């Protein structure tokens, strides 16, 4: 028999396999730039500034070259003053333009990103629950952060930096061509070599970088699990084995890092070699021409080239990088736009109405429903809940309890049959107007980062502090909040913030209590709390359920027992219906469940 697997984690990260680059696509580029439309004047001004800068840089070099090869080598002191002044003036204007060119580009990029974020957020909120149930949080966040970031770089850098660099190349090429076409042709011949060198190494670099990212994420997840599982590790004395595994992971990561270093350690010297090679050629060829052909003017050309050539070469590298960036931006933009283009599977009917005063009469008429319409999870369910009643939903995991709740909340629409609220088809009721008269308590007891006060107030944002306190008081649980380190001002949300499970539940109860909804949806938490707190929460729950139509996915026996109706579900079918006592007398599924549920408790003690 083979021994158990010797590793800490086995993680495949789908996110790492997302495409990092994609070829340039006109449609995507165009769409990216439509976001600059509200800032058109800034964008157009930027193009102008960029073009100006593209000529300024070669002119600066030209001014140096001309001053050296002209006045300085010929000893003309009056012309030297002119040359120096021209240079100083050019330098100042270049830096002046540079300020605006940099600032406006950054601002433009940021504005586009800002607008895209808002648009994306609004779009996310429009998407129905089915989207959230099938998409991982990490993906949504990376659309909003890293992918939008690549678009920003695409908008703010790629176009403008490329323009500056291309312009610089063209102007310096023109100047060199003017001085000496033969020397320039040598330079021109070297450009493609430089370009392909750059491309070749960039490709290998990005492949290497991806490997580094992958091995790093293996290292990180190993640490993360070691930290989360530290109790298990120490309890089971696994430290030495884990260390061995970890050592393997970091050695692997270090090897990947060295591979990347090796590639870039080859690239930079090669690029430098290129410029040294050029200088040697320049001296050889320029010297020959100065000595045997052009005489004194030849030396002037030589010096000009010495300064201008660099302006022609360095853009080759920069453009290569920008090209890379552009392809990365394409991949990011494609993902962001794909999310933006994702149409909600359904939306409120255009003629759905606001219903300001819901009574809370709810009826299911032969409702069939499946998250995937081909695989229904609810079959032909019918029942009526009268205003003010408490309905307990009972059944095994997967029996369809949550689906019923989801349909009442209009998070999903039924596949067949009708859900009626106050006799009106739920499809004809505007989702928002329904939700405003509804309250929910989730099983996980979700709290937002913020104070206890803010979390409760979420149920009704216009409520005063007194009303929030009153809501907790009406649940008879003020003392449970008072014991928190800062009472209602205690900040909660992140894990380990010193608020117990019971207190979290209470905050969620109070949130719903404050909203004072006509319809309450409650998915009882399964985690057991100590007996006293548990009993207190039960008492609070009874107060919350009073005087509104409530649907409870019940795990507490007391809740079920007090319900006006118990709906017993099994594999998507409504099997039994009635009060606790009625169902016990029938002696069906519920009676069996109850037996299992409580045999221990009610046994004689």
């Amino acid at each position, binding site marked *: 028999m083979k021994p158990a697997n010797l590793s800490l984690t086995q993680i495949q990260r789908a996110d790492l396999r997302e495409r990092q680059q994609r070829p340039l696509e006109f449609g995507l580029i165009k769409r990216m730039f439509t976001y600059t439309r509200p800032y058109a004047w800034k964008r157009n001004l930027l193009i102008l500034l960029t073009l100006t800068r593209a000529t300024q840089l070669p002119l600066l070099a030209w001014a140096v070259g001309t001053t050296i090869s002209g006045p300085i080598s010929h000893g003309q002191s009056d012309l030297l003053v002119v040359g120096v002044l021209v240079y100083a003036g050019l330098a100042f204007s270049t830096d002046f333009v540079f300020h605006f060119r940099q600032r406006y580009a*950054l601002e433009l990029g940021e504005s586009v990103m800002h607008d895209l974020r808002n648009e994306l957020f609004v779009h996310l*909120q429009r998407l129905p629950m089915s989207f959230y149930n099938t998409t991982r949080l990490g993906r949504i966040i990376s659309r909003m952060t890293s992918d939008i970031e690549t678009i920003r770089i695409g908008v703010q850098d790629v176009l403008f930096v490329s323009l500056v660099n291309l312009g610089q190349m063209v102007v310096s090429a023109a100047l060199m061509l003017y001085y000496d076409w033969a020397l320039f042709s040598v330079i021109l011949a070297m450009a493609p070599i430089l370009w392909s060198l750059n491309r070749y190494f960039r490709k290998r670099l990005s492949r290497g970088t991806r490997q580094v990212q992958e091995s790093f994420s293996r290292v990180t997840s190993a640490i993360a699990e070691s930290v989360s599982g530290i109790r298990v590790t120490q309890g089971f004395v696994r430290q030495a084995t884990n260390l061995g595994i970890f050592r393997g992971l970091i050695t692997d990561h*270090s090897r990947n890092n060295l591979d990347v270093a090796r590639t870039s350690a080859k690239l930079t010297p090669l690029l430098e070699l290129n410029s040294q090679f050029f200088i040697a050629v320049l001296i050889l060829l320029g010297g020959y021409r100065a000595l045997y052909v052009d005489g004194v003017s030849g030396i002037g050309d030589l010096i000009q080239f010495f300064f201008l050539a660099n302006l022609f070469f360095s853009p080759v590298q920069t453009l290569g990088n920008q090209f890379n960036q552009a392809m990365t931006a394409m991949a990011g933009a494609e993902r962001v736009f794909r999310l933006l283009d994702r149409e909600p599977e359904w939306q409120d009917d255009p003629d759905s109405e606001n219903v300001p005063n819901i009574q809370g009469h709810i009826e299911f008429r032969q409702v069939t429903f499946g998250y995937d319409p081909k695989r229904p999870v609810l079959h032909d369910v019918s029942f009526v809940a009268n205003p003010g009643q408490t309905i307990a939903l009972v059944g095994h995991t997967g029996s369809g309890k949550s689906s019923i709740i989801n349909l009442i*909340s209009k998070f999903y629409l039924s596949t067949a049959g009708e859900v009626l609220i106050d006799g009106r088809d739920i499809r004809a009721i505007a989702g928002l107007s329904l939700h405003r008269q509804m309250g929910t308590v989730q099983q996980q007891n979700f709290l937002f980062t913020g104070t206890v006060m803010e979390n409760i107030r979420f149920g009704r944002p216009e409520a005063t502090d007194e009303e929030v306190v009153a809501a907790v008081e009406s649940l008879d649980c003020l003392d449970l909040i008072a014991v928190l380190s800062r009472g209602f001002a205690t900040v909660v949300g992140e894990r380990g913030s010193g608020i117990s499970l019971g207190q979290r539940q209470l905050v969620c109860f109070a949130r719903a209590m404050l909203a004072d909804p006509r319809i309450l949806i409650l998915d009882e938490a399964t985690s*057991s709390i100590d007996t*006293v707190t548990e009993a207190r929460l039960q008492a609070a729950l009874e107060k919350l359920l009073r005087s509104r139509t409530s649907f409870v996915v019940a*795990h507490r026996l007391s809740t079920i027992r007090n319900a006006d109706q118990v709906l017993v579900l099994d594999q998507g079918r409504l099997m039994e219906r009635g009060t606790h006592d009625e169902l016990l007398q029938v002696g069906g599924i519920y009676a069996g469940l109850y037996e299992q549920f409580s045999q221990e408790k009610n046994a004689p003690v």
Partner: protein
Amino acid sequence: MALANSSMVGGDVSNWILVRRLLAMGWRYRRGCIRVLILQIILLTIGLSGLSLTGLGIDVIHSEIDADFSAPGWPFGFEPPIAWAAMSRIGLIAGVILALALVRAFLNYLYQMSVAHLVHAEIVLHLREMVYDKLQRLSFRFFDANASGSIINRVTGDVNSLRLFIDGVMIQGAIMVLSLAVYLTYMLHLHVTLTLACLATTPILWGVSVFFSSKVKPAYRRNRELYDELVRSLAESVQGIQTVKGFGREETRRELFFESNQRFRRQQRSIFWKVSLYSPTVGFLTQINMVVLLGYGGTLVFQGELALGTGLVVFAGLLQQFSGQVANIANIANRVQQSLIGARRVFEILDSPVEVSSKADAVHLPKARGAVRFDQVGFEYQEMDPTLKNIDFSVEPGQSVAIVGATGAGKSALVGLIPRFYDVTSGRLTIDSIDIRDFDLDDLRRNIGIVFQESFLFSNTVAANIAFGHPEATREQVEKAARVAAAHEFITELPKGYDTVLGESGATLSGGQRQRLAIARAVLLEPSILLLDDPTAAIDPETEHEILEAMQYAMEGRTTFIVAHRLSTLRRADKVVVLDRGAMVQTGRHEELMAQPGLYQRLARLQIVDDLRERDEILREVRPE
């Protein structure tokens, strides 16, 4: 349990001590550092030679065609024969430039690889291993007091910041000082007053970079905070989507997001202003140098005090390199800050005391019988705030003890004392009549099987998870343990049976299934003592019976401590220990405790009452004033 504020030591070590310690660490890697430095010195020399040769080339040509210009002096007293044609001299120069460039390229490769090797294969590797090793041996107190994100960061990001001190501060600093000195000497050698005139702006340049980084750094920190806030706002809107939609409060969240998006943008803009002021200013200062060089240097050239190529052109090149290094000072200063922050956080871990460890002359414990005795045990999680007081009871081998009490009564703490997750602060705890602090720690823990409240399973195969405590276990042993834990059946129904990978991409298990795997993991080692810390806490009542059954099998023949609320479990225990705010208020069998008035009876009644009024009455009795 209340969180200890901080168990960290050395929170306020002075920077100076930190720097000394980092220097000492750099000394450990001196061979790599020195190799890198020597390579850099050679590279510097070659670079300067290339530059001066270019100047020489220009001068040679210049003097050939313009008789006014005197022939340049060749370096190292070398003088090519007069007979050589001008073109041969130029060819010689070009050839040497090219040869030097080739050598330089090769050495540059070596240099970069040496740095990479030093950083990735030595410093970071060693540090990560050290920190991880230490981390695994730290007591739970440390993990209670620190968020897991921060702990992870110490092994990843902080280690990287720390090593920056060696390659980014020590090595780069040495290179900077060295090259500044060389450039300066060379420039002074060419022309003293020109050097001084050109460097007049240097202090300003330096001042500007320092001023800028002091202005921008706090802005960037604030920027990071605002960004985190933005992402958190998004993340919570997604995680809490059901709550948001359920209350119809999309608008509230939307406004919140728009607001933090706007705040972030506004702050970004103020940074853009500063950044866009900085680069042109630095650019302009450098260009002023060039103005001085052209004006003053140009005059010197036609006064014959400075050669055109070896003088002016070389000087221009040197000036450029010099300014580059000066601007680098600000970078290095920033790195000092960054690396000190990282170092502090890494050293905090390396210096944290391992609170619980084996004694030097520890007793070996191959197989415990399982007699456990709490002898007047007290435990203070935080000083002066006892978590457990005067706990005194004993358990015979094979017996089971149930521990009952409200949240915060000290149940988990009591159980955690047995495998020495924490050490008792008074009294003693014995196994087979020997103080557990005398045992070899690993031996002690190998004799104890533990199931936690929410069992952590690793994202690995089912088999690897069960064999966690004994990786060499055969498949038969794994299956046997799974059968004991009533887990074999559902495991075989998983897509790949025992080889199914759990977690992110693999199968998801129900709470009950996870706990049964945890029980299997605990019994694989055939421990004499079994600790069950409220294993049904996170499980819905419908599936609870599955675990109860597994627990019954697992407990057979072992001394068992079980934290529990439910009467069903309590009734089966050989002994019940009732805790109230750290004190043992009652002990005995379930029947005995039910017969006497007290906390136990009230708690039990609370679970079985049908009548609401009666419940509220009991609640009033137990509710603390």
